[in-house]
């Protein structure tokens, strides 16, 4: 059972049971501080163990992040305001990866998108 946001990535992978939170990446179990929502989401997710009859069974939670949808635009944004910064960040990142490889570190961290 997976509880997560980023439906396109989870569906591309394929999982047995999927409880989808349409929230910013980071809080798939509910908004920080909202204990009622957090409990409801995990209860719904556990219910999938009883309702799913085939793989990739998916349910969307009924909860919204906010009335304002502006949060949807910010993640991994690329525009003229940050294009040069991203190019430089990529160069620095590749140098870091090369140094890690030379030092024998086989596990690089993923790239943070924001």
């Amino acid at each position: 059972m997976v509880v997560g946001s980023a439906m396109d990535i989870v569906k591309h992978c394929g999982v047995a049971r999927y409880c989808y939170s349409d929230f910013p990446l980071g809080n798939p179990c509910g908004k920080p501080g909202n204990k009622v929502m957090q409990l409801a989401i995990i209860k719904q997710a556990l219910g999938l163990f009883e309702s799913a009859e085939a793989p990739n069974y998916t349910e969307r939670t009924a909860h919204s992040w906010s009335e304002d949808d502006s949060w949807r635009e910010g993640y991994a944004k690329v525009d003229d305001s940050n294009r040069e910064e991203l190019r430089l960040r990529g160069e620095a990142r590749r140098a870091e990866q090369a140094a890690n490889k030379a030092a024998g570190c086989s596990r690089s961290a993923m790239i943070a998108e924001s």
Partner: protein
Amino acid sequence: MAASDTPFIANDIPYMERTRKFYRAQGYESDYVWAHFPTTPFIQPSKPLQESRVVAITTSMPDTELGRSNRTVYSNPIKPQPQSMYTEELSWDKKATHTNDIASFLPLEQLKALATEGFIGSVSPRFHCLPTEFSQKNTLEKDAPEILTRCQEDKVDLAILVPL
């Protein structure tokens, strides 16, 4: 509800498309390759929820010197519950939210409450940290089998994986 009843809709964020553009803007010539499998394993639970032991698995790391510097599989007791987890290296939305409340991504509090009310049988005495990886081989051949072994040691029936 069948799987096809929960389709991707226009308002859902196209993370794969955004990530491809984000990597290209950083000068990467090859697109990221997300895990994809032609078939998905599936079995029905052998016990009702009320009799099942549930484990939580997170992609965050322990908020310790070791957890911050060495990305590998960790298992920690659920008591005492950690007050924080190390998430800084992960690709969550740092503009829109934060990870200061661990119950928003690691459902230990929720599972304990649901065990107390009898909705589930019990909570695994340990939770597990699974490092995100560029190498699918590390995940498939090392980390996932290791976590499965530890879940079996703890007599876990059901697992909830919460990726950040």
